[in-house]
């Protein structure tokens, strides 16, 4: 972590305030001296940022899709390959022990980051597989015809389709709770759906932060409502973990899922947290090596969670990278990072809203640094291509959230999503590129 030390103060929640950041973009360090959140120093940690695209410096604003990786993560993965390559949980040789230590160490890092117990952390390929595991192994055995799973209109397809699949098998129904024109969840409608569904509701699944429009859902309140009706809650935390400190215990939910690659870690690795009693009640989704206690042709007994859900050789190097990513985040002043991202989002909203013909999609007061917009007369994909020609990488499309797009009455949006390494200069480059697109299209 020595590389990042210059970029950050020690963790000092009390010292950080938005007022300081707006003034000098500085915060109070532990010793009381103002230490700036030095975005340029942080950028030095990300080799991927330092390149040109079509002759322009890369402006990477597609962080809700995936983030660039800091050197610490790249080195952790490389180190594993160069020194520790071996399988886990078997073999008594030194490398096997090192690989196992890496893997189980990463589990402890995830647990520490989210404020949970390591034995409640299941490694998965990512958020999608994590939600599928809950749908398949927790919800499916409990579903009867006529039962319901409740989601919201804002969900990512990964938090809709797995529930549809198991509900389809069981003759159950997925119900979606509406959002208002700003993209804020209608809590009264949620309460009503819970009331109406009664004991037939087997799960409530909600995103922590909407990937499509950036709404931060009031998860604690949602969990209280659901639990008052005896309904367990799964939270899709893919967009939250990289951008805000997440205290899973405080949220009170039953399952929490996230991906490494959106949190500065590698792709193909993520985790599911589940309450121990839930995990113990769940059958495995996949069978294979490592997930068993004993195997014979008369029958097989399964290992305890979390191993029960980790059949086969897992993405060990991915866990090394994931742990490095979480350590990297942990080494930063998270309050300062969050304030920096909030300031970027506010700046982007201000710049884009000031352009005639540009309309923001999703204006929830509680929002993360995800700004979705449409431009009159220019389809989002054309916006994306024209911005790319100026080195500005954004996402254009339905963001794997077609119901949300339909709710807002658009087929697609352009989406700029920010990370801790983005700058205010990049916000301005985004706005300039959008104006350029308008000139080009005569829009």
């Amino acid at each position, binding site marked *: 972590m020595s590389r990042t030390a210059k970029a950050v103060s020690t963790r000092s929640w009390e010292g950080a305030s938005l007022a300081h950041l707006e003034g000098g973009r500085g915060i109070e360090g532990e010793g009381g001296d103002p230490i700036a959140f030095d975005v340029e120093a942080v950028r030095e940690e990300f080799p991927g940022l330092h390149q040109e695209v079509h*002759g*322009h410096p890369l402006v990477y604003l597609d962080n809700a899709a995936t983030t660039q990786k800091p050197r610490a993560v790249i080195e952790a993965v490389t180190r594993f390959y160069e020194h520790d390559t071996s399988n886990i949980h078997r073999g008594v040789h030194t490398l096997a022990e090192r690989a196992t230590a890496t893997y189980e160490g990463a589990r402890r890092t995830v647990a520490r980051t989210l404020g949970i117990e390591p034995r409640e952390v299941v490694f998965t390929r990512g958020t999608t597989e994590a939600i599928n595991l809950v749908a398949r192994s927790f919800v499916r055995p409990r579903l009867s015809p006529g039962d319901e799973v409740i989601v919201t209109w804002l969900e990512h397809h990964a938090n809709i389709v797995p529930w549809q699949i198991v509900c389809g098998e069981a003759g159950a129904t997925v119900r979606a709770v509406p959002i208002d024109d700003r993209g804020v969840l209608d809590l009264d409608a949620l309460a009503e759906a819970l009331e109406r569904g009664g004991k037939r509701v087997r799960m409530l699944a909600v995103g922590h932060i909407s990937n499509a429009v950036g709404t931060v859902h009031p998860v604690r309140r949602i969990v209280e409502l659901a639990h008052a009706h005896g309904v367990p809650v799964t939270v899709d935390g893919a967009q939250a973990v990289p951008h805000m400190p997440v205290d899973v215990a405080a949220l009170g939910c039953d399952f929490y899922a996230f991906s490494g690659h959106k949190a500065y870690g590698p792709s193909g690795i993520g985790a599911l947290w589940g309450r121990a009693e839930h995990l113990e009640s769940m059958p495995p989704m996949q069978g294979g090596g490592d997930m068993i206690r004993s195997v014979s042709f008369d029958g097989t007994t399964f290992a305890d969670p979390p191993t029960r859900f980790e059949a086969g050789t897992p993405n060990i190097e991915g866990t090394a990278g994931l742990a490095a990513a979480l350590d990297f985040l942990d080494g930063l002043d998270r309050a300062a990072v969050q304030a920096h991202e909030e300031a970027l989002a506010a700046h982007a909203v201000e710049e884009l809203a000031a352009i005639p013909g540009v309309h923001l999609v999703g204006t929830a007061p509680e929002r993360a640094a995800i700004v979705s917009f449409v431009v009159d*007369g220019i*389809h989002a*994909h054309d916006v994306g291509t*024209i911005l790319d020609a100026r080195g500005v990488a954004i996402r254009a499309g339905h963001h794997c959230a077609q119901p949300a797009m339909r709710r807002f009455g658009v087929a*697609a949006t352009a989406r700029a999503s920010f990370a801790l390494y983005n700058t205010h200069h990049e916000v301005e480059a985004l706005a300039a590129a959008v104006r350029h697109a308008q000139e*080009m*299209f*005569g829009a």
Partner: protein
Amino acid sequence: MSDLRELYQEVILDHNKSPRNFRELPEADHHAHGDNPLCGDIVTVYVKMDGDALGEVTFQGSGCAISQASASMMTEAIRGKSLAEARELSSRFRRLLTEDRPDGATQDAEALGKLAVFSGVKEYPMRVKCATLAWHTLSAALDHDSATVSTEG
């Protein structure tokens, strides 16, 4: 900047802004609906035959400039062509965008006339499907009808 004008040529921007033959054709002999689920472009193509030739061709849809301009220019290019000529033009167009054949490409570009403005799309692999959507939809419309004819007629 890579030359974006190669992709968004004036004629493409013009057809996007003022699409030609943009209407439903209730009396159509053939029609098909095409969509690109990856990016949400949608096109419906209508064809009214005039003897053996494509008499009137119209479309409706929504999507990016490339997909809509391509559909608009297609309706102009294939009007009056025979079925065989329309199919030939369709394969030439798709070849122009997908195949790496410097010699054949020149030949195709000549045969394609105005449609050759789409040759720049080849440099943007993610956008090739936008340009070919209308042509795939046209093929489906024409094939579907022949399939109908073979079972019912």
